[in-house]
């Protein structure tokens, strides 16, 4: 799967309501990726209006501040061994 370009997470816009990162697509729509999918290792943001995709450059730790901003938790909290 080839992507159109790479974009760093700091260049993307995070929407706390939809928990989604977006970035302008050259078609006029926006590339989108859900924060929980990124937490699970997904790094491809897709555009709903065309075939272009971007690879989001980020580290898993980068997501912490966005989860805090949204007041939410990652999908699978690390289980504490009993």
């Amino acid at each position: 799967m080839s992507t159109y370009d790479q974009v760093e997470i700091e260049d993307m816009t995070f929407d706390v309501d939809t928990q989604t990162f977006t970035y302008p697509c050259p078609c006029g729509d926006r590339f989108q990726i859900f924060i929980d999918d990124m937490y699970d290792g997904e790094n491809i943001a897709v555009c709903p209006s065309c075939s272009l995709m971007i690879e989001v450059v980020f580290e898993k730790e980068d997501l912490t501040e966005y989860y805090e901003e949204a007041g939410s938790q990652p999908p699978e909290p690390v289980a504490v061994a009993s």
Partner: protein
Amino acid sequence: MVGTNLGLPHCEDVIVPQETLVLEKGQCVSRIACGGNHTVLLLDDGTALACGDSKQGQLGGLEQWEGWKVLLGGVKDVTCGWEFTVVINEQNELLSRGTGPKGELGLGSMRRAEEFTKIMDVNMGSRVFASLQNCTVVVPTREGGSKVYGWGSNTKCQLLEPKSRIVDRPVLIYESTETIIEYPALGRDFIVLVDTHGRIAYASGSLPLGFSTQDWSSHSGLQVHCMWTSIHIWSSKPGIYSYGNGNHGQLFRQEEWCPASEISQVAAGSEHGVLLKHNNQVACWGWGEHGNCGRLYKDKDSIFNDYSNVISPLCDVFQAREPCDLFAGCATTWIVTKC
């Protein structure tokens, strides 16, 4: 394109050029500025016409209209970014409206303006230029040089060092007492300044791999056009020379496509290019998924996009009778013909 930013009475992508506006005799288009989903067309008499999306305040709040509406009169220059519009009026005031989460409005902490709001005064003869997340103004100085100010995203140090996410007031990015900057060519994360002799005076930001201002330092008579992720330098020799992202056919193939001697005008959109040949043939190349590079094989009658030319080699799209003017936006191509 995903909205009504072609000024047509529908939202469908078209792969054959469609007439969107007929002007009265004597009226001329001086510039077409394209945002993410909005378009502003400036007439010689200072009237700015607009079409497309305005939900972010870039054209007129929640107001709905079909086709083109008069946005503003007394406009000397206009440019559009992703969701914002910037003009210079007859009083030489620089004004912006719309939405700019990276400081694209240049209005300090104000991230959204429903009306044109003054950024600053500029000298007579100033011009504005934007890419999706940056805006620049070229101000001629009284001493005969230039000052260039910029604002918006600065994550790739396109405006100043060190990098920052937001620059929400104009900052001086270039100043010369001798060199007169004619225009900045803006990519997504980079800026190239070109002077009145067609020399590359300055470049900043995340420049496409392989591009170096030094390689072009001895050249004059250049025109520089930027797509979001590539630079295209047009000169009499070697023709159009491209650097950067070519994974959707964006890099010009000079030898195969068109001799430099046949080209009379070039324009660049988000990820496609448009050129005019001396025989008044308009041709496009690059990413054409929305019909913006035309149909390669003219085997169908439908005007609507059939996704038959997503990655386009140089493709003839329109034969004009006289020389015409070309503009390009986010997967949109614009041809201004004379009646």
